[in-house]
């Protein structure tokens, strides 16, 4: 915006003129303002979602909302426990399947794969990150769900299908960060391990993974954030029954999917309850980011 003005500015070798100084200071403040947009964004999200969601806490009450075990909007019941349990079950299962796959992929990329194989697998991981979640949901609905239906004898909507889809969706997040963590382990450590006669596996298991431990934990936590906040793909395969978890092949609902299901017709307290769910989601994801930062500070502290 102010590039054109700069050319006419007086240039001096040693001392800045007053006008240059003022302009430099003004620009610096402008840049700072831009940087604080991120902070403004977080504050705005909190304020506006919170403002719309706040009435649920006064009208339904903290106990009825956070502690209620029935989500029946038509009867004025807005207990989020079944949704919370649903989100938790879906997320933990996806992590149990996806984290080993992702860490395995990262180790493969960083330690094992020959360069030619790596040049195929790494772009694949990156492209996987770009696949829209609605496409994953589409694939899950049409391909994975019928398979799960045959396996479990039910209709195929439920946590198991969501696990399989989400496990793949979190691979890029976890794998990329894990690879970074492995990459920051000094080569000397690897060489020392091999010099002592350790096999590749022993080096990976006894030396590299422990050395990259905190980075990998970070990666898994951020993968967890991705899984818990995932909306469209989960919505399309999870069955959307707002009841407690009853089995891996039985429908459940999650915080995210319930919002999309209910939003088109919700009004009044029900609508505020959906914004209330969004606040909970926001706090969870912010908490996970805080955890990661806390961990990295811990790591810096121990060094």
């Amino acid at each position, binding site marked *: 915006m102010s590039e054109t003005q700069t050319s006419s*500015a007086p240039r001096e070798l040693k001392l800045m003129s007053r006008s240059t100084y003022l302009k430099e200071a003004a620009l610096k403040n402008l840049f700072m303002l831009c940087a604080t947009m991120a902070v403004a964004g977080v504050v705005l999200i909190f304020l506006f979602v919170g403002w719309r969601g706040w009435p649920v806490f006064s009208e339904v009450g903290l106990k009825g909302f956070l502690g209620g075990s029935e989500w029946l909007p038509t009867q004025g019941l807005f207990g989020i426990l079944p949704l919370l349990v649903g989100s938790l079950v879906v997320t933990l299962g996806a992590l149990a399947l996806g984290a080993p796959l992702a860490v395995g992929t990262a180790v493969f990329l960083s*330690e094992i794969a020959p360069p030619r194989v790596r040049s195929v697998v790494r772009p694949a991981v990156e492209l996987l990150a770009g696949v829209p979640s609605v496409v994953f949901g589409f694939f899950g609905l049409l391909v994975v769900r019928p398979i799960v239906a045959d396996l479990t004898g039910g209709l195929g909507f439920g946590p198991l299908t969501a696990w399989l889809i989400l496990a793949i969706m979190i691979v890029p997040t976890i794998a990329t960060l894990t690879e970074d963590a492995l990459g920051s382990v000094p080569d000397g450590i690897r060489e020392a391990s091999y010099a002592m006669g350790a096999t590749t596996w022993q080096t990976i298991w006894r030396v590299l993974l422990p050395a990259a431990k905190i980075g990998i934990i970070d990666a898994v936590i951020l993968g967890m954030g991705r899984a818990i906040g995932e909306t469209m793909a989960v919505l*399309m395969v999870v069955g959307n029954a707002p009841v407690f978890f009853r089995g891996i092949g039985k429908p459940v609902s999650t915080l995210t999917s319930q919002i999309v299901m209910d939003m088109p017709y919700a009004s009044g307290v029900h609508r505020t309850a959906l*914004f209330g769910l969004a606040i909970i989601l926001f706090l969870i994801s912010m908490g996970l980011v805080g955890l990661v930062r806390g961990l990295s500070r811990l790591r810096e502290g121990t060094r």
Partner: protein
Amino acid sequence: MKRDAKNLTNTLALAAFWVAGITTVVVLFAVIGYVFINGARQISPEFIFTNPHGVNAEGGVWPTIVATLYVTGLAMLLVTPVAVLAAVYLAEYAVQGRLVRTIRFAADTLASVPSIVMGLFGLALFVESMGLGFSVISGALALSFLMLPIVMRTTEEAIRAVPKYIRWGSYGLGASKWQTVSRVVLPAAASRIITGIILAAGRAVGETAVVIFTMGTMINTPILPTDPGRSMTVHLYQLSMEGINMPAAFGTALLLMAMVLAFNLSARWLLRRNRRMQG
């Protein structure tokens, strides 16, 4: 004996890692292949360039393509100056301290906000409180918050990757800080910055939960930024859940995937070309 066991364990473990790596690739190709094989039949100039009509959206998807590109382009325009200058601040001006820590924490938080939360935020702020209604501009504003941390991070990395001696050269010639940044550092980092913007745009193209609550679900070819529209992702969601017109769902999925792949591959191509030029 012991040595054999050691080698066997090693072989098995390495095989497991190969399986992990290959699984990832196979799944990617399965998803892409499924969409392309089933969608290819549907693709024709009519499908791409005509309007849908009737209760089951027969015909084409042109308005959804326009809406998607429009909202993404507008979001890019909105986010690029802010994100790039923010990154300039973090990389060139800021001193480590509480403010920088807060900004980084906020950026990380913003990057991990679930898209549905961003959607409801956009609904509450832009659509309702600011009175912009379900519109391209509401969608673009909400998406720009989603893209902000991505573009900020990639730009900051790009700026930090510019060698220090280039800056010294500029200062040595008597340039001021802003002259150095605007004439030397940013041009040197430009292609990596553009790569980051394209990647963020690819993410915006594939976003559903944000645009469904900010741009709406109405099939409409938006002209003004205040017009509503339905993105390709929302169209795919509605068609696949309605489940009556599945051929159109496959066709839309294919076009969507092609668009996302085009964004990602062009970003990669740009990055590689840049590396070759530098290296």
